[in-house]
């Protein structure tokens, strides 16, 4: 096995190719991101500003405040907890342990992005969150429980991204597909 090993998503082999459920229009699109790159950067209570600067240096934009995400020219940062950011699709900044801590979670979450007119309704069949556009606009981040499992949400231009803990991803994905069937749905992985 001389060639580089490839990554296998938790949902590989579980993404139906055909139209799902109610025939006709597609109410929900479910897109699985195959190779997530996700780093968590955490600060200490007295180093938040310094770590925010380090996060900003990677994304090329200001580091987001609580419950927000900011997409910079180089990468996206999500503020998932008061002291923690997630950086998507970029290498993390170097942070000395006196400043904070960096940990790789690229394989720990499975990213599914829901879009289409019924995307929020579909998610709200499970999540007790107000995902109406005006309450949860693009750039919003939230943590909540999906069938007792902690998940993270982020609305971006492509839809509402849900980060599922990898081991639960298949079970929750099946629930999502079953729920999406009433709206008419398509799924894809890339």
């Amino acid at each position, binding site marked *: *096995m*001389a*060639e*580089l*090993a*490839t*990554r*296998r*998503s*938790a949902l590989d*082999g579980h993404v139906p190719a055909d139209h799902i*459920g*109610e025939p006709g229009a597609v109410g929900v699109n479910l897109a699985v991101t195959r*190779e997530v790159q996700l780093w*968590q950067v*955490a600060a*200490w209570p007295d180093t938040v500003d310094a770590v925010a600067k380090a996060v900003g240096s990677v994304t090329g934009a200001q580091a987001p405040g609580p419950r927000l995400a900011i997409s910079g020219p180089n990468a996206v940062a999500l503020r998932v907890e008061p*002291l*923690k950011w997630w950086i998507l699709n970029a290498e993390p900044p170097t942070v000395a*342990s*006196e400043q*904070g*801590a960096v*940990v*790789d*979670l*690229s*394989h*720990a*979450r499975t990213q599914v992005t829901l879009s289409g007119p019924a995307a929020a*309704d579909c998610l*709200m*069949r*499970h*999540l*007790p*969150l*107000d995902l*109406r556009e005006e*309450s949860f606009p693009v750039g919003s981040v939230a943590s909540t429980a999906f*069938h*007792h*499992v902690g998940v993270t949400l982020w609305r971006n231009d492509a839809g509402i991204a849900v980060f599922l*803990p*990898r*081991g*639960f991803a*298949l*079970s*929750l994905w*099946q*629930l999502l597909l*079953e*729920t999406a*069937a*009433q709206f008419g749905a398509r799924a894809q992985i890339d």
Partner: protein
Amino acid sequence: MSATRLSQGGRIDRSCELAFQWDGKGLSGYDGDTLASALLANNEWVVARSFKYHRPRGVMSAGVEEGGALVTLGSGAHRDANVRATTQPLFSGLEAFGQNAWPNVRTDLGEVNSLFGRFFAAGFYYKTFMGVPPLEWGRGTWLWMQYEKVIRRAAGMGRASREPDPDHYEHANAFCDVLVVGGGPAGLAAAQVAAEAGLDVMLVEQDSKLGGDTLNHPAAADADRLAAISALETLGCRVLTHTTAFGLYDGGVAGLLERVTDHQSIPSVHQPRQRFWTVRAKHTVLASGALERGMAFGNNDRPGVMTVNAARAYMQRYGVRVGDKLVLSTNNDSVYAAASEFAKSGAEVCVLDARARVEPAVTEFAEASGVRVEFNTAPYTAHGRSPVSGLTTARADRDGWALGDRMECDALLVSGGWSPVVNLLSHRQVKSVWDASLACFLPADTDEPLSLAGSAAGVWNTEDCVRSGEAAGARAAQALGRSAPTVSAPAPGGWATPIKAVYEVRVPGKSEKCFVDPQHDVSTEDVRLAHREGYVSVEHMKRYTTLGMATDQGKVGNIIGLALMAEALGREIPEVGTTTFRPPYTPVALGALRGRHVGAHFRPLRVTPLHQWNLDHGATMTMAGLWHRPWYFARAGEGISEAYVREATTVRESVGLVDVTSLGKIAIQGPDATELLNRVYTNPFAKLAIGKARYGIMLRDDGLVMDDGTTWRLGEHDYFMTTTTAHAAKVMVFLEELLQTRWTDLKVHLTSVSEQWAGVAVAGPCSREVLEEALADPSVVSNEALPFMGVVETRFKGDIPVRIARISFSGERAFEAYVPSDYAPSMMDLLWPAAEARGGCLYGLEALGALRIEKGHVTGAELDGRVTIDDAGLGKMASKNKHFIGSALAKRPELEREGRAQLVGIFPVDKSKRFNAGSLLTDGTVGDGHGEGWITGVTHSPALGHWIGLGFIKGGASAWHGKRAVATDPVRAEDVDVEIVSPHMYDPNGERMHG
């Protein structure tokens, strides 16, 4: 004498005929019918049998308050009992059955019960079957226990299906600015005003159509209703019909039940049958309407006796006139419009008004239509069986009633006044206020963002209801900071002549069966009996008589019951008080409460990144907590026993691979990470070298063992902790709690990386060779480079990053290798050919258990929350030189007492015998009680060739040397004599792990 389907009028589609089955008989109705209207149109008067007396019952209302027409829908697994025929939309192919009757509701042998009706009064069972001398004395219940089954079978309602529910249900969440409950004139107006103010409005209506009571008005007057509905559509208001707001809770939360497909002939396969909504609203408008109640008079439960407004609904909405000769009995103005409409349609109509006189304007219109009105008159008793064929009237006589005349009729329609639906307000613990002039409870004020509108607020006229709705909508808008024109809410009331409170029509010296709560067969006499027997609290009276219980929850009967109790006590109704309405307003199916969390989704399921790989390689899976884990990998002809014995043997002889991904993994990072570990582990962690792992024990605050695991030092301030599968979440939460509450000064971050890393244990004498073949640089796992408890971060071939520790759960030379999860299958594709070439195997949880029991290694089965570190034989790991979590309370006398149960190994004396996990250990003299100890795990030991076990016994192995011990399992198996040995049953010195 029959009900007539009129040739025109109503909101049914006569071009769409629907065939349905009633008790096996083929009938037909029209699209737009309810089951009740279709049954009436087919002159099916007897549709149910009553709870206790099996009296014939018919349709009594046209809504959710129905206490008579309860039927069973569907059959087999789809059987749905106690469905109100009055709210069930008719669909093609609907199948309905009468219930609580044999052979059927028309001829029910159970009716014999009514002959003994005088004995079946409130509390009958307890009085009759408890403490009956000479069989038993005092409060004995033995007799009751014998009779209970028979009594329960004779009384009751429909039977639930015993098959699994085949339907799907789901939960949904919604948020809005204003939730309007009720789609009548007030609700529509409130929603429109709020939406026009720019608010996000949700309107829910339990009926299939919007319009509330205006649906029961002549269809010609429909313009306002249609305009209001169209306005809501234009404003983007969310409207849910077939949806009941069944409960109001804290913080503006409402529970809704949407019946998505219950009205469909062929339900959509992609839609749930019902949807359980949790709605969070900033403001709620209750426009939930009012219910017309009856009066208590003789045989007032006969088929053919119903409320006036129900009969109006059947004619104006469903095109069914319930009789040709109608008698309407009233004590208020509300019936005259209906009387006039009945007369105009060709019926002979007589109104019996209990009042002495009314304003001429009230009756003029009706009398002009041919309606005859008699004042000072009420029904004394109904005659005929099913339906009613006549009545004897009562004439007002001073403060009471005297016997009147006999009249003929083919339906007796009653209006005893109206009760605003304040149930949802009652859910918020707001007590209603009795209004004697309107003879009803009115909603009291509340500080919550809740408004009442329309007849729910006691407003009786349609125009006033609209204004009341507008006022409520405007108030909601203003409360939420929007501008809206202020509308003054009309005062409650609206009748030209005041209502005369009539709850019961009783003639002195005469006695008839008069029902207060038809659903539970509670009569006026039951209420009085309860009073005579000392029940003075209305709450006690309710429970003693069962008045207001069952599916209708006393929606119409409660007021009459209260009035009778007040009369018996010689008090006014407000002094007697009222019972509290609690959710749900109407019944909610258990299926809807469970939603999609059923079957495979009962719990969230967790699979490892190797799940498919394991299945592809022959794994039989088992559940371990939420995890799916390989149990064993059977080869041809093998069952579980053969498979695990082979697997464990192979591990000891060559090599085995096992998926250990489910172990908890926590990244512990920060300058104070070492300090944290040193405080939580019992053994020293201050000086663990980078590149080394250490086994550690954690105690709870109370000094008992919480968990064990290994922690690897990856860097100066960077650790990787593993926990048991079972306690992963508990350990993570406990450590986080320590950091956030007790040790806020420590700079440590904890992150669960259980999902980031997929793990495999490579165990057995050939384990190093297998790893070497898979690694890019084989030298990193040599004995020198990676001695026992060493850690290395390196790469597999294919550039897969891996962290490896040389640790052993099996007792063999072994390694745990963790790769980022997405690479797990690729890792196995490297390791497995290397293992297979050496005669190795894949092994599962069963072999893993066998290997660890042979070694005496503990798991969650042993660390069950009762065990101290000494009990587990790990006392040497408790440092005497430092404080750690649990170190103080571990010194409690009870935990340090001599003779506590200690971890031991267990052999059968007769090596051909086996014993079970969960058995008690005794000294053989006593066969019950708690014994001397217990067995936590057993296995057939491949290495030793017989069954062995791990467990705990008082004093430990040394105390039992040479003594008889018995594994006793009273519920499953015979006693087995056992020998208590050291828990380290195989390779006690651990020589096989080294080298």
